[in-house]
């Protein structure tokens, strides 16, 4: 009974609690906006303020799409280092179906995709890929994706060292 009375008193007094404020006017807000602290700081000269943020970026446009008929995933352009003619229809197709992470996609499609670990220097084209590895790709009839630490990576193919010949 006592608790009920206290709750009742609280409920009644709740509506008379904090003061009700008047809605801010457009004029008052416009005045507040003049206090922007950025306006007080020194502005750079127009020639100094040039920054670069490319617009219209798209990870889809900057990637190759792999598709197995039901699922798809993306890899950076340049990560597909070997593409047999028979599997060209599975690369760079329209992305329809279920999108999977690269790891999930290759787990499902090991029968036609394989990976080749590369070092960062190999990816950058500073060090050529192992000739034995490259020779092995064509024997597997699988798409070969360059990976680094399990993630697909673009590869610049390094120029082969020029053979020294006698005149």
């Amino acid at each position, binding site marked *: 009974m006592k608790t009920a009375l206290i709750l009742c008193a609280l409920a009644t007094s709740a509506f*008379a609690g904090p003061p009700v*404020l008047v809605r801010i006017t457009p004029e008052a807000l416009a005045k507040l906006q003049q206090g922007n602290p*950025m306006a007080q*700081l020194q502005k750079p000269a127009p020639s*100094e303020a*040039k920054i*670069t943020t490319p617009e219209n970026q798209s990870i889809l446009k900057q990637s190759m799409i792999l598709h197995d008929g039901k699922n798809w995933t993306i890899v950076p352009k340049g990560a597909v280092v070997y593409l047999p003619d028979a599997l060209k229809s599975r690369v760079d197709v329209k992305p329809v179906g279920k999108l999977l992470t690269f790891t999930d996609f290759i787990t499902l499609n090991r029968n036609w995709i394989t990976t080749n670990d590369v070092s960062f220097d190999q990816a950058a084209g500073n060090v050529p890929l192992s000739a034995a590895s490259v020779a092995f790709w064509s024997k597997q009839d699988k798409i070969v994706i360059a990976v680094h630490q399990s993630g*697909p990576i673009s590869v610049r193919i390094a120029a082969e060292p020029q053979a020294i010949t006698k005149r």
Partner: protein
Amino acid sequence: MKLVSLLLAFTSASAFSQSSNFVNFVRQTQQGTGVVWDMPVAATGAAASALALEAKGSLFQLWTIQQSPAKDYLLDQKLVGAYLPTSDIRIVTLDPNGTIPRTRVDQPFSVEINVDGLLSGSGLPIASTQVLLEQHIASYPAGLTSLNPTTVLSNTPLYSSYIAANGKTVLKFPASSLKATDPTKALGEEHFAVHALSDGTITQTQIATGKVQVWPVASGQIKGIANGDLIRFQTPSIELILTDLYPRSDTTFMLYEGSSINGVTGTLVKAFPWSSDTTTSTVIPTTELDSKFTKDGTYTVALMSTTVYGTELLCPPITFQVKRTLQVNAMQVNFSDNK
């Protein structure tokens, strides 16, 4: 080349990434060599970059891709380098709710910018001694409540300035800078970005970003009754027009005895609680007012909304009279016999 272990936090930066219809990708692009690497990621968490950070910087981008139809969204990006200054931006508002920082256009907020790695001394290249801070504002087009950060940041900034010292810089904004014909109705986003100054070798410069979502001030209208009205037997039908109610708000239509609303106890006539990620507008008819009158006299009705910023009127209160007691004047009746 120095190998730097970078912990890249890729939390769900947007409502996009919380849905199973979206898959996240973290892509690292080496600015010097152009090598592109997709970091294997889980939905949330942190991972160490396996690539060396080049002097010219590595660009980390957090993308989410919608499955069907396939569409990509750049949620965040950051340029990091072994010889680049580093920065973080934190935006603090009075509203603790929401998946991203949010505020109301008339409310204060602060932007905390941490900068590290700047050098001091004479003869140093300018790119190593200061960074550029930018403030961008962008209104929401009709029907939209999110914007592509790359698009916002590629526009001309509202303001820009240099930061030439390491440590924390705190900027206190008394209100949002978003513009509108009626500034109380402005809505959109404010983005802040810190850029490393270009020394001619890097193709991206953004090293930190932060954004705050800005909502308009709610307003309202009580239709069907006006100041000075006299209510006799039938209470007029009343409509409450509620506009731009804050994402988390409790809107009430209150009745007060007398002509004041502050310091007196009111009676709740109608309530409209709202909890969402966006504002809302609606029209509510009410017939409950009639049952709240206890006696004849002066009454005031008020439409108000309670948010994290306090309780505010949505429109001026309306004071009127209720007079229902029947007054019978004496009548003189002659019962004369005309026969």
